[in-house]
C-alpha cells in the first residue's frame, strides 16, 4: 500500500509545481514533497510493505538502503534549492522543479523495481528528467554538456536494454514460462546458458556503467557536472550513480546465481581499478572545481565496482561507501555551488581564500575533501578501510596495493586544487548587485550533510548496520 504512495507523492508535487505560476513560491514545494517522501520512506522501513503488482514492486535490502539514501539526499538538497533559487530569480524554474520531482519519483521506482523491464524504464525516466536540469543555465556550454549527456546516456541505456534482453533469453532454456522478475531470473540462471549470461553481463555493465560513470564511459560526467547547478551535481553524483550501481548489483546477483561469480568479479575489479586510475590522472592539475568533483565521482564509482567485485565484506564496504559517497558528494557540490555563486567563477584562477570570504562553505568544502579522500574520522574512512581489509584478507595483495596507491594519488591531485580554493586571500570582487552570502537555507543543508558524514564515521546506527548485513547476505546467492 505504501510503495505506490512513495511514487505518487513526488508525481503529484510535480503536477502542483507545474500549476503554480509564481517563480518564488514554486521552490517551496520541494521541501514539502521531500519531507513527506522522507516520512513515508521511514514508515516503509519500519513497517515492511508487502510486494504489489504481482511482485513487480517490492523492496529488497539494497533497494531499501538506496531508497533511504536518495530520500535523505533529496531532503537536504530540497532545502538548499529554495535558498539557491533566490539568487537565480532571472531564470524561470518552471521546468527545473517538476523535473527534480519526476526524478525523485523515477528514483523511488528504481529502488523498488523487482522486474528487469520496469527497472530499465524507471532508470531511463531518471536519465531523461535530469537532462533539462543540466541545461538550467542556458549557456552554449551547458547545451553542449546536455547534448553529450543525452547522447551518451541514451546509447548506454539502450545497451543496457539489449543486455536485459540477453539476460531473459538466457533464462529461456530452463524456464518454460519465462518472466522478467529478478527472483525468477535468479532461480532459472543455470550454467548451460553461460554464453548468453556472459554477453548479457558485459552489455549491462557497459550500459548501466555509463550511467554510473565508470571509465571509459565516464566522458559525459565532467561536462555535465561542470555545467549543471551545484545542487543538480549533488543529485547526479549522489543519486543517479547510486541507482545505476543498484541496477548493476541486481543483475550481478543473477549472474552469480548462474555460476559466473569469478567472471563478473574480474570484470568489476578491472573496471573499478581503471576508473580509479583515470580519475587519478585527470584530477591532477584540474582547475575547474566542479570538473574536479566529477573526476572524484569517477574514482568513487571505481571504488564501488571494485568492492562489489571482491564481494563478501568488501561488498558491505562498497554499499556503505555508496551511502558515504552520496552524502559527501552532496556536501561538496552544495559548497562548490555556493563558492561558484560568490566568486562568479569555478576556476582556481579566480577562486582563492574561500574560507575567508565564505567561512561556512569554504570550511565544509575543505572537510568534504578530507572526507571523500578517506581521512578519519569521516564515514568514507570506515568503508574504504573495510574494502581494503577485505581485499587483503582475500589475499588480493596486488589489488589492495593498487587501491591504496590510487587513493593516495587522487588525494594529492584533489588536495592541490582544494587548497588553492580554500586558502589564501580572496581577490577583490568584480561583480556587483545581488552578492551571495551564506544564509540559513544554503548553509544548514551543508551542516546537516557534514554531521551525517561525521556520524557515519564515528558510529553506524544499529538499524543501518542491520540493513547493510542484510544486503550483503542478499547478494550471496548459490549457483
Amino acid at each position, binding site marked *: 500500500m505504501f510503495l505506490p504512495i512513495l511514487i505518487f507523492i513526488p508525481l503529484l508535487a510535480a503536477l502542483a509545481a507545474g500549476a503554480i505560476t509564481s517563480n518564488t513560491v514554486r521552490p517551496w514545494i520541494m521541501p514539502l514533497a521531500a519531507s513527506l517522501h522522507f516520512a513515508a520512506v521511514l514508515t516503509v522501513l519500519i513497517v515492511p510493505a508487502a510486494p504489489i503488482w504481482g511482485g513487480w514492486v517490492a523492496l529488497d535490502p539494497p533497494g531499501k538502503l538506496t531508497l533511504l539514501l536518495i530520500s535523505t539526499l533529496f531532503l537536504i538538497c530540497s532545502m538548499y534549492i529554495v535558498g539557491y533559487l533566490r539568487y537565480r530569480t532571472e531564470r524561470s524554474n518552471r521546468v527545473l522543479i517538476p523535473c527534480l520531482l519526476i526524478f525523485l519519483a523515477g528514483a523511488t521506482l528504481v529502488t523498488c523495481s523487482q522486474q528487469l*523491464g520496469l527497472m530499465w524504464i524507471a532508470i*531511463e525516466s531518471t536519465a531523461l528528467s535530469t*537532462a533539462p536540469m543540466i541545461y538550467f543555465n542556458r549557456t552554449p*556550454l551547458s547545451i*553542449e554538456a546536455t547534448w553529450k549527456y543525452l547522447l551518451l546516456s541514451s546509447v548506454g541505456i*539502450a545497451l543496457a536494454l*539489449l543486455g536485459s534482453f540477453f539476460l531473459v533469453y538466457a533464462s*529461456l532454456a530452463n524456464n518454460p514460462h519465462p518472466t522478467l522478475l529478478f527472483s525468477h531470473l535468479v532461480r532459472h540462471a543455470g550454467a548451460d546458458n553461460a554464453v548468453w549470461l556472459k554477453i548479457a553481463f558485459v552489455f549491462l555493465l557497459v550500459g548501466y556503467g555509463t550511467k554510473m560513470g565508470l571509465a571509459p564511459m565516464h566522458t559525459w560526467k565532467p561536462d555535465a557536472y*561542470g555545467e549543471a547547478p551545484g545542487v543538480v551535481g549533488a543529485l547526479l553524483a549522489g543519486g543517479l550513480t547510486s541507482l545505476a550501481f543498484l541496477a548493476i548489483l541486481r543483475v550481478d546477483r543473477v549472474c552469480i546465481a548462474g555460476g559466473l561469480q569469478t567472471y563478473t568479479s574480474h570484470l568489476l575489479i578491472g573496471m573499478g581499478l581503471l576508473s580509479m586510475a583515470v580519475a587519478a590522472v585527470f584530477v591532477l592539475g584540474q582547475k575547474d572545481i566542479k570538473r574536479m568533483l566529477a573526476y572524484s565521482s569517477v574514482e568513487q564509482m571505481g571504488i564501488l565496482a571494485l568492492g562489489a567485485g571482491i564481494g563478501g565484506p568488501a561488498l558491505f564496504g562498497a554499499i556503505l561507501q555508496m551511502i558515504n559517497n552520496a552524502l559527501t558528494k552532496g556536501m561538496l557540490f552544495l559548497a562548490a555551488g555556493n563558492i561558484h555563486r560568490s566568486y562568479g567563477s569555478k576556476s582556481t584562477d579566480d577562486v582563492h581564500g574561500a574560507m575567508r570570504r565564505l567561512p561556512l562553505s569554504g570550511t565544509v568544502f575543505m572537510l568534504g575533501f578530507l572526507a571523500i579522500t578517506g581521512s578519519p574520522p569521516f564515514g568514507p574512512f570506515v568503508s574504504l578501510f573495510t574494502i581494503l581489509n577485505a581485499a587483503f584478507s582475500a589475499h588480493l595483495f596486488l589489488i589492495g596495493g593498487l587501491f591504496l596507491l590510487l587513493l593516495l594519488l587522487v588525494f594529492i591531485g584533489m588536495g592541490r586544487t582544494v587548497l588553492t580554493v580554500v586558502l589564501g586571500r580572496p581577490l577583490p570582487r568584480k561583480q556587483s548587485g545581488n552578492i551571495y552570502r551564506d544564509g540559513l537555507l544554503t548553509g544548514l543543508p551543508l551542516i546537516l550533510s557534514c554531521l551525517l558524514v561525521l556520524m557515519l564515521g564515528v558510529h553506524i546506527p544499529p538499524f543501518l548496520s542491520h540493513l547493510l548485513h542484510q544486503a550483503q547476505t542478499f547478494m550471496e546467492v548459490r549457483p
Partner: protein
Amino acid sequence: MHWSINTPLVIVLLLNLFMLGVSRMRSLIYSAAAQGVILSALPLLLEKRIDVMIIFVAAVTAAIKGLLIPQMLHKALRDAQIKREVEPLIGFLPTMLLGAMGTALSITFAAYLPMIQTRIAALIIPASFSTVLTGFLLLTTRYKAITQVIGYLILENGIYIFGMLLLAAVPFLVELGILLDLFVGIFVVSIILNHINEAFSSLDTRQLTALKE
C-alpha cells in the same frame, strides 16, 4: 512459416545498407520510419494467437515509430533551416561497405552462439546485431545532430528485433513503457536540438567541442 518472418527482416537489412549510403536527410528519415513500421508488424507474424492487445501494441508502435517521431524530426529539420545533406565523417560508400561487413560478421557470429529456441526464424539474431551496428555507425560517423538521433533510433530498432525472441516473456506494459521512454527521449532531444540551433546557428556537432580537458 520461416519465410514470412525472414522476408521483412531481409528488407530491414537492405534498409540498413541504404541508410548508410543515402545523402539526403529526408530520405534517411523516411527509411527509418519505414523500418520502424515493418518491425512493428513482426509480432503479428510471430504470435500464434492474435488478440486485441497484440494488435494494439503493434498499432501504437507503428504510429510512434512511423509517424510521430519522423514528424518531430522533419520539424526539427525545417526549423533548423540547414543544408539537407547528411555530412559524413567517413564517405557514404566506405560506411556502406562497413555496414555490409558488419552484417556478414553478425551472421557468422550469431551462428557460433547457442540458439535457445530453435523454432523461431534463424535470421532474428543476426538481423538484430546488424541493425544495432548500423545504428552505431550512423551515431559515430555523421556530424549532424539529427543524423545521430536517427542512429539512436536504428539502434533501438535493432534491440526491438531481438525482443521478438522474448515475446512470451516481456509483458505488454513493459513494451509500452519502453516505447514511451523512446518517445519522450526523442521529444527532449528535439527540444535540445532547437536550442543547439539557436545557440550555434547550426546542428553540426563539430561546434560542440568547447568542453574538454
